[in-house]
């Protein structure tokens, strides 16, 4: 009976129910298999399981603590932010939000609107252009397809810094600096090749019989694409839309470069100017607007989790 009743090991569970022969089985282990003794069977692992959950919850709290603290601090009067590491404010003060909203040259909804326009344009652009290119790569036969496909894959890895300087020159020749065009037009031209790849993978998983049958019925590629492939590809389209949304909303580098006039500022650029515009002591309004800037991402995260997880697991994007 020195043997522990059941080794506290999740992997023994399937074995315990399946393995017919095992020499070193203790009596209690056999007893544990009797169906009306489930409690005894789980007594050992349960302590461990509870401990595990306690640890996981504790770790999660530590991870989220800075975020929660920022949320709580955005409701604290400035003078106590630096004295209260706790989450529950001793005094609630909503004025941070009002103050932050109007702290910069334009009211904050101006920047929210600018960001929203760019995000909307990027999402629509990526959905249309990337799905079209993906259809060609997944379903059409044309000369040089493997080479073009390889080139497409390589552009995924290309650091934006290598092309940003000539892009800047090009867009300034076109008088596009301080417009949203440098941030939206490339999306209409399928330059986010990652989403082409994602959708190629998805299209390849759809049964070919469907579009072959449609072709026999006289459907052209336009109709096959619009009426068969796209309706079946809603999960891939959702993943693309969600990631485009979050990336564009968070994007800082290209917006910093192409938008230099304050009325064109987006949320990230506006947030950044907070440091210059206000003294370092007014963290309250800054936190309030930071929270406002994170809300859209958080909402998308809440409703799009399924697609996010699937998207990452299959392609490895952030």
């Amino acid at each position, binding site marked *: 009976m020195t043997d522990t009743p059941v*080794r506290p090991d999740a992997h023994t569970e399937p074995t315990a129910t399946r393995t017919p022969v095992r020499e070193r089985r203790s009596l209690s282990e056999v007893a544990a298999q009797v169906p009306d003794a489930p409690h005894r069977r789980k007594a050992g692992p349960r302590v461990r399981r509870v401990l595990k959950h306690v640890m996981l919850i504790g770790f999660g709290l530590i991870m989220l603590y800075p975020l929660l603290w920022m949320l709580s601090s955005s409701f604290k009067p400035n003078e106590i932010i630096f004295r209260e590491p706790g989450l529950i404010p001793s005094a609630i003060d909503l004025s941070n939000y009002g103050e932050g909203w109007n702290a910069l040259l334009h009211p904050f909804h101006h920047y929210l609107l600018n960001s929203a326009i760019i995000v909307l344009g990027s999402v629509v652009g990526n959905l249309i252009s990337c799905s079209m290119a993906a259809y060609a790569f997944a379903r059409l036969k044309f000369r040089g397809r493997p080479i073009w496909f390889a080139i497409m894959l390589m552009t995924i890895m290309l650091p934006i*810094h*290598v092309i940003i*300087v*000539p892009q800047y020159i090009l867009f300034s020749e076109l008088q596009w600096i301080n417009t949203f065009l440098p941030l939206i037009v490339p999306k209409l031209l399928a330059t986010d090749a990652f989403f082409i790849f994602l959708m190629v993978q998805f299209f390849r998983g759809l049964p070919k019989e469907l579009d072959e049958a449609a072709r*026999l019925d006289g459907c052209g590629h336009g109709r096959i*694409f619009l009426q068969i492939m796209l309706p079946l590809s809603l999960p891939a389209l959702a993943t693309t839309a969600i990631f485009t949304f979050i990336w564009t909303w968070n994007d800082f*580098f290209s917006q910093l470069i192409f938008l230099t006039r304050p009325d064109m500022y987006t949320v990230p650029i506006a947030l950044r100017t907070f440091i210059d515009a206000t003294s370092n002591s007014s963290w309250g309004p800054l936190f309030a607007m930071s929270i406002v800037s994170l809300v859209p991402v958080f909402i998308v995260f809440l409703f799009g989790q399924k697609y996010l997880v699937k998207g990452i697991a299959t392609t490895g994007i952030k």
Partner: protein
Amino acid sequence: MSVMQEVAKTRGASRETRKGDGKAAAIFLAPWFVGLGLITAFPLLASLYLSFTDYSLLESPSWIGIENYQRMFDDPRWMQSLSVTLRYVLISVPLQLMAALGLAMVLDRGLRGLAIYRSVYYLPSLLGSSVAIALLWRQVFGADGLVNQVLAYFGIEGYGWVSHPDYALGTLMVLNVWTFGAPMIIFLAGLRQIPAMYYEAASIDGASKLRQFFNITIPLLSPIIFFNLVLQLIGAFQSFTQAFIVSGGTGGPVDSTLFYTLYLYQNGFKSFDMGYASAMAWFLLLIVAGMTAVNFLASKFWVFYDD
């Protein structure tokens, strides 16, 4: 069955009658081709050309050969930016992947509440690159920030971490490790693929958990580890926002957070030294390509493909 066979037959037939879809492909690929040419390939070649010139946007570029590249190696700030970035990448990426793998192992095995844990741990990955989080970091690790408040509770007096040249880069590493959620999800998917019977067989044979980890999990997961490694290395090397915000765009204190891309930005878009910035960009491209290639070559020796 017969339907399937028939479909298969017509499929073959239609493939024969279809002499390729060149025209349709041209239409479907048109936006991508235009983008590839104008937004990607042309700028790529143009920056290669510019990297051999002196160009300030005001006057036309003048050819100076490899001077920009020579200048990099004589430029102490460039050396500093490379060294800062390498330290950041080589320390924070392995730590981040270890955290990701560790948590993925704990979360595997049909744990109750798995979906909730996964979401909570993943959330920082989504937010980590935002300006808001970088600003938060600036406060949390500031002189009178959250970290020091907690330390003060234990009677320890902290530094102004983000304004101390020895620690500022460390705070950015912490931020990168904090975003371990994305690789964790990839690990979770990978762990699912390992058949449970391997572990069952091993534990029947009396193999310890540790041995199971090193002899089953690691080898079978090595392609995923490799994939994550390449992805995170490349991503980390191009980090920009965090350093820019935490240092207020300077890369300070004393250039201790001068990321490579930040120095590139300063050259290209602050001093409009676009020839030099282009040379730096091409060097970055070579590093990224080199890291990927080295990883692929090395993977032959340690990545185990189970087929």
